[in-house]
């Protein structure tokens, strides 16, 4: 039975644990992914991301913990979960001799979608992932990135409410990555719940609304990307004349480490402080070329939390 206190949409995982023999893949993960938002699942290799997604995709029974996908329990109500969940695995094959279009139509059949509606949606999805011109080619001719895009389309065939993407950007060229970002944002804007696992952190800054950081199979932090941008972090300042810049910083008593070749890093409390610093430097006549975060929002948080990499 569904717990009425659990929201009817989105993903909720509480205390999920999963072991394989004596290997603890997921130790204790708590995760919330609300609908209409993109939630990033971030963590080092072997931190249990893929195993957690397999649990969410109703393929593995957790040893302990509660999971709810769109209000349903994947262990006791797997069919209800599957009808509402699109899962793009990290490593997957395709039916090599089938064409792109046939692959997607087969998945549509497997979800018992009405044929005509499925065909229209499949054609649109092929456009969306830029495989329309390869639609009648067998998938064995696809490159790795193209297969990845087909995998994304495959996860979306049945119009799922919840989308699980495991390393969707791996193998994609820069343009495809940007397009992926657009698609993922679009899925969330349509009210779907999107959970993306990745370790390309810079990309997640722009794609994700929230990030759940896991390490050694445990949830170590949950970051709101917008809030994290307001946190104290390192910024990099570059000017045409480094000497003038350093003098201005010293005059403002802004602490800074020794400069490198053409710039210097400063610790700033928030975006507001950064704006103030920039205004002040310009007022002081410093020829500022660049003032930017030294690293991504998530990268900062991630590196701080996962030093004990294994």
């Amino acid at each position: 039975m569904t717990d009425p206190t659990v929201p009817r949409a989105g993903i909720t995982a509480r205390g999920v644990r999963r072991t394989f023999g004596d290997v603890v893949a997921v130790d204790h993960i708590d995760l919330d992914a609300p609908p209409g938002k993109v939630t990033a699942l971030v963590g080092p290799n072997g931190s249990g991301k893929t195993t957690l997604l397999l649990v969410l995709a109703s393929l593995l029974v957790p040893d302990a913990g509660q999971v709810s996908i769109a209000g349903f329990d994947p262990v006791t109500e797997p069919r209800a979960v599957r009808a509402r969940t699109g899962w793009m695995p990290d490593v997957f094959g395709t039916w090599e001799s089938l064409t792109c279009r046939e692959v997607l139509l087969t998945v549509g059949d497997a979800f018992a979608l009405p044929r005509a509606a499925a065909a229209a949606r499949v054609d649109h999805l092929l456009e969306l992932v830029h495989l329309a011109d390869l639609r009648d080619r067998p998938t064995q001719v696809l490159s790795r990135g193209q297969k990845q895009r087909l995998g994304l389309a495959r996860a979306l065939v049945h119009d799922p409410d919840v989308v699980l993407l495991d390393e969707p950007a791996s193998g994609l060229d820069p343009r495809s990555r940007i397009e992926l970002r657009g698609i993922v944002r679009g899925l969330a804007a349509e009210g779907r719940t999107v959970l993306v696992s990745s370790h390309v952190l810079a990309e997640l800054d722009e794609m994700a609304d929230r990030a759940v950081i896991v390490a050694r199979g445990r949830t170590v932090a949950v970051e709101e990307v917008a809030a994290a941008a307001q946190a104290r972090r390192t910024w990099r300042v570059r000017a045409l004349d480094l000497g003038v810049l350093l003098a201005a910083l010293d005059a403002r008593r802004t602490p800074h480490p020794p400069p490198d070749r053409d710039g210097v890093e400063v610790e700033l409390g928030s975006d507001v402080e950064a704006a103030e610093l920039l205004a002040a430097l310009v007022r002081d006549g410093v020829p500022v070329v660049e003032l930017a975060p030294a690293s991504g929002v998530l990268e900062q948080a991630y590196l701080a939390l996962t030093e004990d990499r294994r």
Partner: protein
Amino acid sequence: MSDDSLTSAAAPGPDDAAPGRAPAGTGVLLAERPMPGGSGSGTWSLGWTGVRTVAVLELRQRIRSTRWTAVLALWTGVLALLTILVRWAVHRIYDESFDGAGLAPGADEAAARLADQVAGRLTFGIIVFLVLSLAGLVSPALSATSINGDRQAGVLATLQTTLLSPAQIVVGKLLAAWATGLALLAAAVPFIGWIYLDGGTPFGRLVVVLAVLALTILVVCAIGLGWSAITARTSSSAVLTYLTVAFLGPGLPLLFALSVPLVTENRSVAVRQQLYTAEGAPTGCQVVQEERTITYTNRSWWLLAASPYVVVADASPKPLSAEGSDDPMSVIRDAVREARLGPRFPLEECYGDLARSQQFDDERRAQRASLGVTWPYGLAADLALGGLFVVVAVRRLRTPTRRLPTGTRVA
């Protein structure tokens, strides 16, 4: 969903990276989609559309792999060669033995016709057993790597995370494998039909043979599918499937032979013996109690029943014209029934009494004929074994899963 957002989705520029832009839609939403709710995994649901989806997927892949035509061509070629060779050899033997036997012209013709019929039956039996053996060799390849092969290729989970039930996946794969096997059988039909047209074989026998062959292929496909769900490595499942098929085919008769010591006992039994005069001339018969070594095949005959060779032989109607067992199928059929009857007491050892001997043989033949048929039990046992493997395969495909076979990935 506006057209604008569709366009921007189709051709997003680098600017799309900027947060807050109009979202790229995923397009045509489905007005209606199946939305199962509530509990239950539906492991055993067997809706036809799902089965068809899997079967079509499998067959499409099989047909498009280029090896398929080569296999069919090779199979047909081997069958053609074997049929021609066997037919030639058998007819040569029979033509020689009936040629110039010094019979009257009319009798000669009748004898030649009889010889043709006997030769036809013999060829038919040999060809059927060859096709059965070849089918046993080829059929495992149709399904023995089906599930673990999909697992290795990372396409099994794609099906498992849809609304297809494990039973639909397994039965769909089984039907596709069976259909491929039936295509091979269809390629064999012209050769079996050719020998049938040579004469001597009842039509019922042709029908029964084809039916049993088709069902045997189904059972072998089910066994292969089961092993491919049980083992992680495709090579293991292939070997295990071949071993299981070998156990059923030649293995069970071999086991029957090896079990003879287990059913053999030294017993004091009634024996009908020849009496002799003082001069050593046979006079009459008498029944005495004597210690004998008796093999009770009536306790072990069932080992033979499930072998497809026995099933096909026992199920084929006997040719009406033929008195004796002059073809391989009748020989096997009679031998199995003889084993089923077991020893008969008193043991008949009064060989001098020819009339009595003949009567004994006639009684024995009548007893064999009155025995209920064996093949339904054998066929049922084979089908049950196949069913067991299907059930095992379905259970191994249930998700979400608690345990993984060692060395397998989920996806």
